[in-house]
């Protein structure tokens, strides 16, 4: 009784990857175990906590609610892909460190991807907006205050980056 | 561990008793049994391939039939070892007449299992053991009700052109007393029958005489259906 495998092509953090997976293989498990990218974490497996959030064609989605075969051909960005091009911390990641936006770090990858996508559309948020931006991800450690600060700090770092580039 | 059970065969007691002592029957009906080589009176060296779930491999060991009280009882002791682990079994077999010319077999086995296969958990072991015991007896019944060993040998010959000659040659050679007798299971494709492999279950040396998975019998039935 062995399951048929389906060849699935994904572009993960800019790198084309091909895996052969059963139809029921969750994208979260595929990323973590078939592709070795363990940065995406699984907190509930029912789509509520958001720790598994990755960007699918740029949009944040719960990878625990997706089948890998269902996103065949998509471009996936995980927390590992949120580093800066030079390999150092990306602006959102740097902001989290600057603002003590994490404690145990388990929920953090889901916040990093979510915020990365959100800041593209909201480059200059208010504190209220920043709090709403993270309103769909659970954190049990921080009480969210420093995560809100991290969103604002990340926006600031991105603006500085842009200015430096000009 | 203890494994006990019963089976009802549609054949008279004497025929069943004889079949269970006959290496030509055993080699075909013990699950995963590949060969029996006679070591002495009622003693054989045996090679069996079987497994439980993912734990599979080949065992080499010996089988001894003792304490004969024909046609109602005998004892079987077996030892086997191989990559999946080790087995030692001591089995008491009783036969009594049932209704309408049937035979009721009761078996009581005391088995010690070691190595990897001993690690898979008692319930898996006993479940597989009982299931395949039932299939083994089904295979024996098949042999008995379809004309006996000779017919089985004939069928085996029908499977593969070379088969019959090999088997027959071995018997004829044995009859001439020119060396130990070797009984081989009819050659059969080792395709991955999902049921076959799991039916192969746990073979514990001579406990496999009772506890084997059904390969030969299954194939015999398949062959008889297709021919």
């Amino acid at each position, binding site marked *: 009784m062995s399951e048929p495998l389906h060849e699935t092509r994904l572009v993960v953090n800019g790198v084309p990857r091909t895996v052969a997976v059963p139809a029921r293989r969750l994208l979260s498990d595929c990323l973590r175990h078939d592709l070795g990218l363990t940065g995406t974490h699984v907190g509930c497996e*029912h789509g509520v*906590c958001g720790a598994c959030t990755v960007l699918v064609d740029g949009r944040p989605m719960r990878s625990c609610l997706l089948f890998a075969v269902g996103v065949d051909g998509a471009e996936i960005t995980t927390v590992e892909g949120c580093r800066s091009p030079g390999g150092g911390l990306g602006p959102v990641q740097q902001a989290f460190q600057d603002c003590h936006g994490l404690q145990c770090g388990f929920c953090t990858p889901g916040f990093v991807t979510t915020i990365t996508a959100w800041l593209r559309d909201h480059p200059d948020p208010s504190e209220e907006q920043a709090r709403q931006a*993270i309103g769909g991800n659970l954190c049990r450690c921080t009480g969210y205050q420093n995560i809100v600060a991290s969103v604002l700090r990340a926006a600031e770092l991105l603006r500085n980056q842009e200015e430096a580039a000009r | 561990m203890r494994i006990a059970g019963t089976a009802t065969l549609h054949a008279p007691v004497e025929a069943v008793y004889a079949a269970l002592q006959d290496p030509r029957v055993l080699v075909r009906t013990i699950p995963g049994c590949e060969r029996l080589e006679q070591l002495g009176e009622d003693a054989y060296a045996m090679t069996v391939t079987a497994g439980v779930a993912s734990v599979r491999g080949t065992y080499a060991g010996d089988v001894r039939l003792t304490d004969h009280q024909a046609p109602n009882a005998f004892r079987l002791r077996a030892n086997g070892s191989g990559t999946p682990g080790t087995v030692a079994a001591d089995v008491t077999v009783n036969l009594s007449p049932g209704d309408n010319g049937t035979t009721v077999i009761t078996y009581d086995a005391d088995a010690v299992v070691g190595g990897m296969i001993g690690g898979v958990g008692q*319930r898996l072991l006993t479940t597989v053991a009982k299931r395949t015991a039932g299939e083994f007896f089904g295979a024996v019944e098949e042999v008995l009700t379809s004309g006996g060993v000779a017919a089985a040998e004939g069928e085996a010959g029908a499977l593969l052109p070379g088969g019959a000659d090999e088997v027959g040659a071995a018997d004829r050679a044995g009859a001439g007393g020119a060396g130990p007798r070797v009984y081989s299971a009819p050659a059969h494709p080792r395709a991955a029958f999902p049921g076959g492999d799991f039916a192969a279950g746990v073979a514990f040396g001579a406990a496999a005489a009772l506890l084997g998975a059904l390969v030969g019998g299954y194939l015999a039935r398949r062959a008889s259906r297709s021919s």
Partner: protein
Amino acid sequence: MTTRTVGEPIARREDPRLVTGEGRYLDDLGGGALAAAFVRSPHAAARVVDVDVSGALEVEGLVAVYTYEDLEGPMAEPLPLLIPHPSLHAGRTAYPLANGVVRHVGEPVAMVVARDRYLAEDACERIAVTYEPLRPVVGLDAAVAAERTVHDDVPDNVAAHMVQEHGDARGAVAAAPHRLKLDFTVERSASMPLEGRGVYARWDAADRSLRVYSSTQTSTSVRFALAARLGVPVDRVEVVAPDVGGGFGVKIMHPWPEEVLVAWAAIRLGQEVKWTEDRREHFVASAHERGQRHHVSVGFDDEGRLLGLAVEFVHDNGAYTPYGIIVPIITATQLLGPYKPGAYRAEFRSLYTNTVIVTPYRGAGRPQAAFVMERTLDAIAAYLGRGRAEVRETNFIQPHEMPYDHHLTFQDGRPLIYDSGDYPATLDKVKKLVGWDEFGAFRAEAHRDGRRVGIGLACYVEGTGVGPYEGAHVRVETNGTVVVATGLTTQGQGHETAFAQVAAETLGVPVERVTVVTGDTRRFKYAVGTFASRAAVMSGNAVALAAGKVRAKALRIAAEALEADPDDLEVAGGTVRVKGAPDREIALETVAVLANPLRYAFDEQTKLATQFAVGRGVDAPPVADDDEPGLEATDWYSPVRSTFANGAHAVVVETDPETAEVRILRYCVVHDCGRLINPRIVEGQVHGGVAQGVGGALYERMVYDENGQLLNASFMDFLMPYASEVPKVETGHLETLSPLNPLGIKGAGEAGTIPAAAALAAAISDAEGLFVDTMPISPSELWALRERHARKEDR
């Protein structure tokens, strides 16, 4: 000149790997291991009649199925009862796999091992267990009534009965000018870390050694437990806590059935085995906390001074008591808070129900205690028409009365003696922070706009830094890095940073050179664990002591090399210098080389060392009798008693007149946890604690039906606060150093949680003009309370 880092809010050393997804949590390890999964009881109470595994054989990739019959020796015995107590007269623990009986939904019945988790779960689904369901005991009422029992040999369902008292409380209540009787209910909640439990075990057959990774708060104790259960010598077992995604108490419970079984299976199969639980398993098979019902009798005078306080409560401990009765003991003793109760009596019964076990969750009995005490004081204030702050001030233990002996026994088995704290100052500070005295004006203005607002406050004391001890090992390597190891564990508290700060400042090296390892028995074997807000106190001090020893040794060796007096030397930036003679110096790494008399030089450093001609001459051995090679030391901190932190929360809420929804307008915290190693980390702990406090006050509860089914076993129905529910926390600090340890530290981990429900209930009560006596309180419950109050049906 020294490198000051203690007290500095430096960025965390562990963050770079965690924010980039390079953390190593349990499920990130063991890629090639077999996967374990469990068949768990769907019934709250049942006999297990048969386990038919034949269906599982269809699953390709199945390796093994185990039930109780496969267990032998110590594995077949009930799991340990970790904290025995004379009052726990009927303690009971579970078997690793059910032995014919199951006593709660989720209890493990069979373990499956297969090639991967998907297949293991397939096999689990195909295993048919025949149960004979029994009618379960659910809820405290049913437990007390004892028409049915959870354990056949515990006829009244009472596991423990304990009384602690000082003075004649009942007599004092009866004789007091005023009296009140109050009832309080606190519902079950749970730690609910984002990462569940997990175990990954590796048996090395050649070495006959076992290595187990577990998402635990106490790797050292898991090691002892596994060695005992598995019959493996202790020195052949190592347990490592990897990065852990939150604990909050639930991961201090050990050994879990899964911990022993996964390790046992790895040995039996000779292959690596890993198990990580899914969220539903965490709900029904880990641990909960909190369910209690209190009855208070309090006697007081015209000023609201407590003359006698008698508390009786029942505590729901679930189906088994592996962690003993620590939680109700803490409730009974910490109920006193910062007050003098006059005569005090606390009596509790801990009862069995057919539900998940109860073990500590952040606060560990203190939130219930603070709720009861603080609501009682508010009731007294209302009764007398006095201010709520004044009634508290009247009852405070005053600073000059420290140390204050309550004449009770605390959870560490030692006398309950508060060592230090300035409770009036704490209250004063939080009042100013929230604008307590000016609130009347705000309320009036809001009232004019048709809004309902209220203010509440709650004070607490927290016993922290409980023993018996912690230790630390500090070593200066020959390349100048400093390696620190301590045995307790980390679940986000920033120990890699905080302990590095302590070591760096004590030794005089830049903090970047210090690495810290926690929770790995290969690196440090004697420890207790991380819980009870004890890590900074215990390991912080142990690190300081060990680093101090290393510093002293370094100075002694450097003094010989520099031909100076150790008292004339200082260490800064990793270099030892003669004070006032900057050219006479020696790098700490060179001192490290000198500390280990070598026959062979293996690099430039060691060659360089020879120019100082350090040695004791030819008449004495290179390593003296009382000395050891290496620039390293181990030291221990073992306190005579716990040290007591304190704080106060003040909250402003608004309640909706129609929907009864509660909105938190302001949340103020003042806390005193002695010296802060890293203020940013402490503040983060307070924020997180407040979030869990808000959750416990308004949202979190475990809902069991009469059949013992947990109805809300998922994040969809067990409500934890998102960012929209947690207010911004305004914090103020006081620093009363602890006299009990060299660094003056007190614990802070649970500070945010303890008084939150009390403060919020007080504010809601104030806004509504009624009395909230349950925790949590939902909008619909508040609405119903309003109705009852309007009909004068409540008190």
